[in-house]
């Protein structure tokens, strides 16, 4: 391959037609409150694991909606439940995390 001194970066666009939503839909059936998340980020702000590990319930929900892998993020959760107290929408976050883990 010729070295041009520059290269192509892949587009960050997500093709929603190509996303596998199966896991997200399955989790939503078991934890219906997952659907009412408004991505405010209160869960991530209150999460004790977040500053050290990048754990974020908001990101987990978003990643599920985009068919991305959430294993690494979830492995950092301590199941302390602070996020469920902070959530203004009443998303059952701790249950959501456990449910995702069970369905993986």
């Amino acid at each position, binding site marked *: 391959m*010729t070295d041009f001194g520059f290269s192509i*970066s892949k587009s960050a666009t997500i093709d929603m037609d190509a996303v596998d939503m199966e896991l997200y839909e399955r989790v939503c059936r078991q934890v219906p409150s997952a659907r009412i998340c408004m991505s405010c980020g209160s869960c991530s702000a209150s999460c004790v694991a977040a500053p050290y590990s990048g754990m974020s319930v908001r990101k987990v929900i978003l990643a599920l909606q985009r068919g991305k892998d959430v294993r690494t993020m979830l492995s950092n959760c301590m199941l302390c439940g602070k996020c469920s107290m902070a959530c203004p929408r009443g998303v059952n976050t701790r249950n959501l995390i456990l449910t995702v883990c069970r369905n993986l």
Partner: protein
Amino acid sequence: MIYEGKKRIWSEYQKDIPDDHWYYVRSCIRQNFFPASERMFTEITRNVLGKDLYETPHHTTCGGIAYHCDTLPQETAMTIVARQFALMTEAGYENYVPSCITSFGNYAEILETWEEFPELEAKIRENLWKACRREFQKPKYLAHSSDLIFHWRDAIAAKAKHLLVNPHTGAPLRIVEHIGCHYAKMFPSKGEGGAEYPYVLAGMIESWGGEVVDYPERRHCCGYGFRQYHVKANRGYSISNTYKKFESMEPYHPDAIITNCPGCPYFLDRWQYVIAEQTGKTYGENGFGIPVLTYEELAGLVLGYDPWNLGLQLHQVAVEPLLDKMGVDYDPDAKYLGVNREDIMRPELPKSIRCY
């Protein structure tokens, strides 16, 4: 998408283009990239349609490239432009038509700035007088040369030798139209169809029998972006933009791409080779690329001009698949011959993308 609604919105953005007497200014770079395009424009305007088109050898750069590359201040570009307007005034013309999209954007931006800041216009008039003792009138009408071909598209269709229709199957050719960013993204009201629904090239395709391809990244930049390409460290941005467009148009299987900007056809054409080198991917059929033409070259093909007189042999991506689909007669052996069929050697062809 509701196509009827889109058509109605387009129709509301039509410009009232004067039919004759134009003062034409060429681009700095188009004659190197696509050498017959401007020649074809003058040929169609003067000899095919019998219009009055005037040019002067005293015309220079408009300063647009240097202005957009941040190497000269706008006041300098304005004084250069003031001199171009003075040349137009001296020649007795009022309708100004640049061949370059960046020039068109530059002129539109300067005229708009003078409208908002008349004191700046007065200063530029003084600069010009001090620099070269010239005075100018502002053009009554500013159009891009693609606006004129758009305006005359039906007259061209009436004289067409080859429509954008596959003569073997009767199916319309699927054409991607790509509009230069400086055409209508800065001043939507100055372009045919505004910024969101530019109709200038789509109108040509429809009049000449083709089908316009609508794809997700249709309005995305070609990737040239002056500060991206001209700085080598930034060239990855440039090619990534182009790659994004090709990935987006690929599922629609376009037969060709037409553009109205100096940079767009160059980058959409040449980057296909670099993408093929870097990723092994080609976007046309059977290992070819998708041919990229300027609107003048396409008009020339429609009117039956010889492809090698249109300079199509200077394209990186082979144009022969499009010529075959249009039913254009051409001599494959003459592709790289010079004047009077003189042998001027053949270029080295790449292995990553099929070429003739």
